[in-house]
């Protein structure tokens, strides 16, 4: 007996400790990764991540009025056919959650200051900032307004909106045990969705498109340059940038060389250090740093254009759109086709997951596309303080209003904080604990932003989806309040139009001092009552064009209106205009009847650089001027590459590499001496360099102020060329310039929403550059440049046969990294410049059966 006990104890003393050790190892989090046992072992974690959709599935849903069928095509795109519109929106919500729940969840968390709740205190600064700038507050207020309107019978659409939310929540509720991998990795659960969450997504889009620090940046640069010479600022940043082709053609053209000189701009120097300090410190918040980098790299841009039936080969308009945003896996846009029998609602296009309807696309009558306008919709104000609880406003001591917030932080107690508000907006200079003085000396800074107000974009979107003609579309556009867009339009009746639309403030500049530019260009002195907003530009007074003589309309973030538009001030910021030049060139020179859908595909994927075409011939000419007919061997080799080049940024060619590296050096050698000596931060524009190169060979900007010599344009261009050759020889370890492939330096990367490399896609070698129609801007200062933003969708609408319309996104429909639809469109279509058909069939029965991948049937309970 004693023997047996001994034996048992011996066995247990071996196996029990072993069990405890193993169980402990696999139950503890490791290097930020949740317990491996929870993540990897059957029954949980990776085994509870949704897989591909079943070929056929039936769901019985309470509160459904009729049947709904969701057909997924070979790209996983849902085509939703419903008997009743309210059921259609329910199914749309369900599909969004089914495919993109984590993406939706993280975006709303960002806007609502709930990232640190799940990711810990590292995200606390982002959360505080997002809450402080008031996006959630105004989503809540707008939601309350919508509910009031719905209750008094003036907002019928709200029922559909709520059914969409029901669809999302039905999915969340019915899939508690199966959820995207990211939830397992980060160890939290999705929570119920609300109409406020959806409205927060609109606010986030507005933030990406219009939140900025341009006024402050401009102010510090202006002061830095005016310290040296009162004309310097206007040399580089004066209105209007050269070679602009206005988006709306009805207001005249700019002269070839519009840049003015001799303005005396001399505002107060008092705040330069404080504002620079604020700008430096605000970049310590991740969200703001990313936003500022994206704006600097001009990632937020877009193209859209439309040709009328005379130019097209079909006799009907063809409309194109590609919106440029930061790339992510999954992508920003979700493609879908929606059809309801009862109301005839029938639309195809792209939506932000988490928002009902489609944002960009077409119905049976009209189609539309967006590009960002760059309208100035945000002003910064500074105020003298009067103690800690009051500030001077319009000469009077005024108490702040205060808002209290609480943020739950993972693993620690929640954080309470208060945001002070002036009459204009939240005081942000006090908010951050990044070594800033409590309030910049005796000054505070606050922004006024159009997003801090009621917004109706979701109603406008609904109106677009239902519009049947230009008048209906215009009526809906009046509700497009935030994120002002150049909305290009066409319809089956042959009309084409464009109207840069949004809420644009009108300022009272009667109190600005001498030397202030007005128009919200620089920060205003709020204590003196400068720059009050006294209204918004009436919709009818916004620039617009309908069926212009030129037979086409095009926008690529260039200046909105020509010099004859005098009604109101619109914008300070717009693109250099190279993409616009190329699009206009291609459409302007097209013969009647020559533009086909195929041609539109090649234009959207065009990588012919008008920037290169502006610079390279000048460079070639300068080489001969400088060296005579027989340049040194190394220069001659490079010259040979450049002379035979057709300015196509082809990844296989060497000339794009030489051009791009040279242009960078040329820009650096022209401006960096002044940037460093005078200490200014505003990005110098390539188009200004082009202007100086072509029009002002002896400009003082070409002189290197750090040397006693007086350098000229030609010397700087050759200095840049020699530096280029040295750099490229070193980078490629070869002095054979024909081996300097552009693709070795120019690559694309599609980062996962989590930032985890294995869930991301790329890098891929690619054609193009930041200034080609098909854009992919990179920084190659330190070697390989990786573009992280560009076209977030491509759309071609053929109004002669809407079923012939094409589209593509640079990811896939589904947000699950194990799905074949995670990156199928990116890898099989987008990177090759290909598209897929939209299957815009008006009934379920016309849908091509060979393209059906899966079907989901919703039935009412009891049905």
């Amino acid at each position, binding site marked *: *007996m004693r023997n*047996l*006990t001994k*034996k*048992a*104890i011996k*066995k*247990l003393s*071996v*196996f*029990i400790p*072993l*069990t405890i050790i*193993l*169980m402990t190892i*696999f*139950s503890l989090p490791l290097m930020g*990764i949740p317990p491996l*046992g*929870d*993540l*990897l*072992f*059957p*029954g*949980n974690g*990776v*085994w*509870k*991540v*949704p*897989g*591909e959709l079943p070929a056929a599935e039936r769901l019985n849903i309470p509160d459904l009025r009729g049947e709904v069928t969701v057909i997924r095509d070979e790209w996983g795109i849902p085509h939703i056919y419903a008997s009743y519109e309210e059921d259609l929106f329910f199914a749309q919500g369900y599909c969004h959650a089914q495919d993109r729940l984590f993406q939706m969840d993280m975006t709303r968390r960002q806007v609502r200051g709930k990232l640190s709740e799940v990711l810990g205190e590292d995200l606390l600064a982002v959360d505080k900032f997002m809450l402080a700038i008031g996006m959630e507050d105004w989503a809540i207020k707008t939601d309350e307004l919508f509910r009031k309107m719905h209750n008094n019978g003036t907002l019928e659409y709200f029922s559909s909106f709520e059914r969409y939310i029901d669809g999302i929540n039905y999915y969340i509720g019915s899939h508690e*045990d199966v959820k995207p*991998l990211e939830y397992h990795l980060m160890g939290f659960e999705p929570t119920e969705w609300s109409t406020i969450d959806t409205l927060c997504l609109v606010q986030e889009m507005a933030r990406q498109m219009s939140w900025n620090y341009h006024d402050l940046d401009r102010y510090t640069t202006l002061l830095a340059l005016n310290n040296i010479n009162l004309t310097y600022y206007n040399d580089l940043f004066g209105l209007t940038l050269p070679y602009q082709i206005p988006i709306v053609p009805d207001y005249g053209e700019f002269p070839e060389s519009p840049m003015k000189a001799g303005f005396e701009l001399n505002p107060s120097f008092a705040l330069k250090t404080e504002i620079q300090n604020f700008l430096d410190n605000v970049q310590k918040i991740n969200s703001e740093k990313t936003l500022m980098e994206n704006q600097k790299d001009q990632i937020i841009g877009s193209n859209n254009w439309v040709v009328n039936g005379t130019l097209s080969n079909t006799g009907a308009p063809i409309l194109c759109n590609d919106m440029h945003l930061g790339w992510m896996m999954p992508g920003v846009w979700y493609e879908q086709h929606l059809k309801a029998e009862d109301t005839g609602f029938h639309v195809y296009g792209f939506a932000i997951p988490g928002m009902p309807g489609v944002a960009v696309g077409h119905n049976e009558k009209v189609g539309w596309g967006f590009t960002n306008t760059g309208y100035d919709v945000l002003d910064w104000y500074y105020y003298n303080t009067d103690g800690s609880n009051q500030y001077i406003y319009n000469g009077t001591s005024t108490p702040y209003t205060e808002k209290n917030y609480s943020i739950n932080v993972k693993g620690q107690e929640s954080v309470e904080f208060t945001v002070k508000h002036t009459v204009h907006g939240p005081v942000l200079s006090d908010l951050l604990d990044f070594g800033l003085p409590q309030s910049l000396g005796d000054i505070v800074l606050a922004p006024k932003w159009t997003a801090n107000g009621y917004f109706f974009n979701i109603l406008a979107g609904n109106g677009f989806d239902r519009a049947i003609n230009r008048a209906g579309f215009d009526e809906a556009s009046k509700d497009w309040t935030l994120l002002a867009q150049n909305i290009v339009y066409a319809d089956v009746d042959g009309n084409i139009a464009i109207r840069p639309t949004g809420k644009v403030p009108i300022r009272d500049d009667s109190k600005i001092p001498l030397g202030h530019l007005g128009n919200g260009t620089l920060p205003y002195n709020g204590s003196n009552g400068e720059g009050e907003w006294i209204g918004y530009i009436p919709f009818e007074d916004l620039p617009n064009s309908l069926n212009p003589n030129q037979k086409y309309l095009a926008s690529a973030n260039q200046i909105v209106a020509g010099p004859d538009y005098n009604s109101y001030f619109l914008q300070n910021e717009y693109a250099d205009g190279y993409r616009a030049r190329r699009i206009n060139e291609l459409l302007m020179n097209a013969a009647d009847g020559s533009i086909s859908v195929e041609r539109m595909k090649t234009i959207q994927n065009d990588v012919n650089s008008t920037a290169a075409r502006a610079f390279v011939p000048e460079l070639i000419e300068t080489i001969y001027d400088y060296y005579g007919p027989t340049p040194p061997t190394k220069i001659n080799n490079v010259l040979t590459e450049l002379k035979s080049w057709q300015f196509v940024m082809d990844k296989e060619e060497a000339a794009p590499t030489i051009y791009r590296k040279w242009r960078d050096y040329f820009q650096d050698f022209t401006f960096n001496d002044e940037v460093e000596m005078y200490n200014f931060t505003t990005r110098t524009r390539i188009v200004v360099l082009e202007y100086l190169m072509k029009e002002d060979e002896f400009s003082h900007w070409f002189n290197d102020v750090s040397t006693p010599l007086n350098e000229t344009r030609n010397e700087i261009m050759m200095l840049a060329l020699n530096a280029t050759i040295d750099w490229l020889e070193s980078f490629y370890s070869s002095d054979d310039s024909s081996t300097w492939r552009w693709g070795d330096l120019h690559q694309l990367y599609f980062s996962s929403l989590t930032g*985890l*490399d*294995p*869930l991301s896609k790329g890098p891929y070698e690619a054609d193009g550059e930041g200034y080609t129609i098909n854009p992919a801007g990179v920084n190659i200062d330190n070697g390989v440049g990786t573009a992280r933003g560009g076209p977030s969708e491509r759309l071609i609408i053929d109004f002669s046969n809407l079923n012939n319309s094409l589209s593509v996104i640079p990811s896939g429909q589904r947000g699950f*990294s*194990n*799905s*074949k639809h995670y990156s199928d469109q990116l890898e099989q279509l987008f990177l090759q410049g290909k598209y897929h058909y939209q299957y815009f069939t008006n009934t379920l029965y016309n849908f091509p059966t060979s393209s059906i991948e899966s079907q989901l049937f919703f039935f009412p309970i009891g049905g």
Partner: protein
Amino acid sequence: MEIEKRTFFISVVVVLCLTMLLTLVPVWQLVIIPGIIAGMFNKSLKCGVLSGFIGVTLSWGIYVLVGVITRNTYIILDQFGALIFGEGFGLLILILIILLAAIFGAIGGGIGNGFMTLINAYTEKHPYRGSKTKSE
């Protein structure tokens, strides 16, 4: 000998089924239980450990296979492997899971067998305890 063999096979099947059932509960630590039961079924330590080993391995093996086929889970394992070790380690993760199943099954078997030995020692010390009421 024949009885022992039959017990062994039955215990493997019981472990397999029970392990499979327990995958419905998202608490992986319960995987030790089928192994313990297997160990208690079998008289010898070797059979106890082996039946736990085989039963749990088979059960998780089938689960993993079905998951890999129906949910493309292998892609996730591959991505997970890349996160920890670098590209192309999905198979290693998969093998590790199966290996750990085997280890947990075997350890469970060992514990179960230890418990059984302890119970046997106890019943040997009190041989009539169970029948006392009857004799009275």
